[in-house]
């Protein structure tokens, strides 16, 4: 597996620091019943809806390759057919299926009885383009938890044994019983823009892990993270990161939305700080998505959810709002202008909130009611740009 080093801290920062002029904006919307593309104009006022692609497929993630600006990968399955990955090299005009989609190693039935058991990929959940220096490399996270890598632009995928087949990891991953209602997931595959061998990932459940050798070996990154009361925080099993993001303008800074709060970690430190303690008490600091500013590492946005008693996972009080910090988590500002003021019981999944790289930054929120909302001013004002879509699973944005 190629893991060539390409340390380029200064270059990464300079690239991240420059706001991209808006030429054309592409939003990639993955839903429970297919995928849609939204093409936006230079002012981000007019949007053209293109779709459905893969109508009837459950599409968990749709990602553009930033290295060529035209290759799209879609993680798809149907209720009855097995999981696969589709690939387009012309921005969604034509699609071709992967020749070898992510799949766990076949286990001999006799060995399966003695070991941790054979597993089957239910769906590919997360797609991350590889490092800028590793053209055609992609990463995929699956449900149940598995890590896969493609070196041919998504045509074929290979599992990483250090994650997928390690007995200790399998214990941390638990079973389907231990996962989210839609299955346990490996997500938030983060590639350090300075070093293709430096990776982070999250598992729900199973915790946060870091590799410095391209995924051959891993270490836990759990210090400071809380777990549900009564459980042992020393065990990865009990950790449930929902979304981990690296700041492109300051790659040593990480943010995390966790089952148990919002956190920040500044490397080389190893202890997460719960910055969500500064959120309003009546809102709390539980949610699924977290979005970082492309050029300001002190700024991130979250979409809190109601985590009371049975965990409704809806906007607290039926009043959807994004919360932003601009000082690394010391203070939080409620951003809800334009959102419904009441009786709006949105759920926003961990991949369903994103940002573009324009100036000011555009933000996008997709909810499980099939509405897509956008802000052209970093969350100050919101408007609905698409509705009546199926349940939205993921939203990604790209400037073309």
């Amino acid at each position, binding site marked *: 597996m190629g893991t060539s080093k390409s340390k380029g801290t200064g270059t990464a920062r300079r690239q991240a620091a420059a706001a991209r002029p808006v030429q054309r904006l592409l939003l990639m919307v993955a839903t429970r019943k297919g995928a849609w593309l939204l093409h936006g104009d230079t002012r981000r006022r007019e949007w053209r809806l293109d779709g459905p692609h893969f109508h009837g497929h459950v599409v968990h993630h749709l990602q553009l390759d930033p290295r060529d600006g035209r290759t799209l990968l879609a993680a798809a399955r*149907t*209720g*009855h*057919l*097995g999981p*696969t990955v589709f690939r387009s090299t012309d921005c969604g005009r034509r699609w071709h*299926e992967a*020749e070898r*989609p992510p*799949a*766990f*190693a*076949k*286990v001999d039935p006799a060995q*399966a009885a003695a070991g941790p058991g*054979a*597993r*089957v*990929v239910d769906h590919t959940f997360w797609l991350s383009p590889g490092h800028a220096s590793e053209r055609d490399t992609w990463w995929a996270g699956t449900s149940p938890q598995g890590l896969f890598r493609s070196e041919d632009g998504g045509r074929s995928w290979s599992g990483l044994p250090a994650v997928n087949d390690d007995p200790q990891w399998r214990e941390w991953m638990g079973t389907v019983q231990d996962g989210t209602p839609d299955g346990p997931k490996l997500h938030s595959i983060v590639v350090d823009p300075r070093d293709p061998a430096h990776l982070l990932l999250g598992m729900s459940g199973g915790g946060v892990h870091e590799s410095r050798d391209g995924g051959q070996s891993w270490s836990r990154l759990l210090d400071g993270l809380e777990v549900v009361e009564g459980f042992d925080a020393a065990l990865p099993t009990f950790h449930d990161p929902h979304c981990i993001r690296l700041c492109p303008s300051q790659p040593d800074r990480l943010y995390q939305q966790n089952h148990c709060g919002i956190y920040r970690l500044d490397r080389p430190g190893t202890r997460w700080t719960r910055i969500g303690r500064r959120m309003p008490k009546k809102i709390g600091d539980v949610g699924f998505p977290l979005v970082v500013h492309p050029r300001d590492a002190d700024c991130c946005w979250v979409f809190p959810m109601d985590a009371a008693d049975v965990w409704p996972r809806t906007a607290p009080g039926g009043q959807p709002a994004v919360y932003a910090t601009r000082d690394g988590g010391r203070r939080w500002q409620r951003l809800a202008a334009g959102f419904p003021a009441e009786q709006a019981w949105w759920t926003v999944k961990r991949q369903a909130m994103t940002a573009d790289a324009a100036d000011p930054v555009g933000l996008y929120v997709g909810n499980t009611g099939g509405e897509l909302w956008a802000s052209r001013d970093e969350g100050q004002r919101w408007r609905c740009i698409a509705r009546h879509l199926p349940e939205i699973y993921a939203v990604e944005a790209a400037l073309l």
Partner: protein
Amino acid sequence: MQVLIPSALRSYTQAARVQAEGQTLAELLADLDRRHPGLRFRMVDEQDRLRPHMRVFVNGRAVHELAQPIAAGDEVAIVQALSGG
């Protein structure tokens, strides 16, 4: 032999009935995949088990094991058990 293909898999075959050969169901599915690449993995998982909701009938009788022998002239029907929302 002739194989009936469910609508969900016709994007691979472009036809409701296709030809395939084999002396077992496993061989038949392997041949189908050679003729229509990608089809097998959508209905058989990486542990060589029929996926949930996928059903195969040989001469009208349900078959659950890939090792099931089949013979020239058998009628094979692949069916997806429709369910869910």
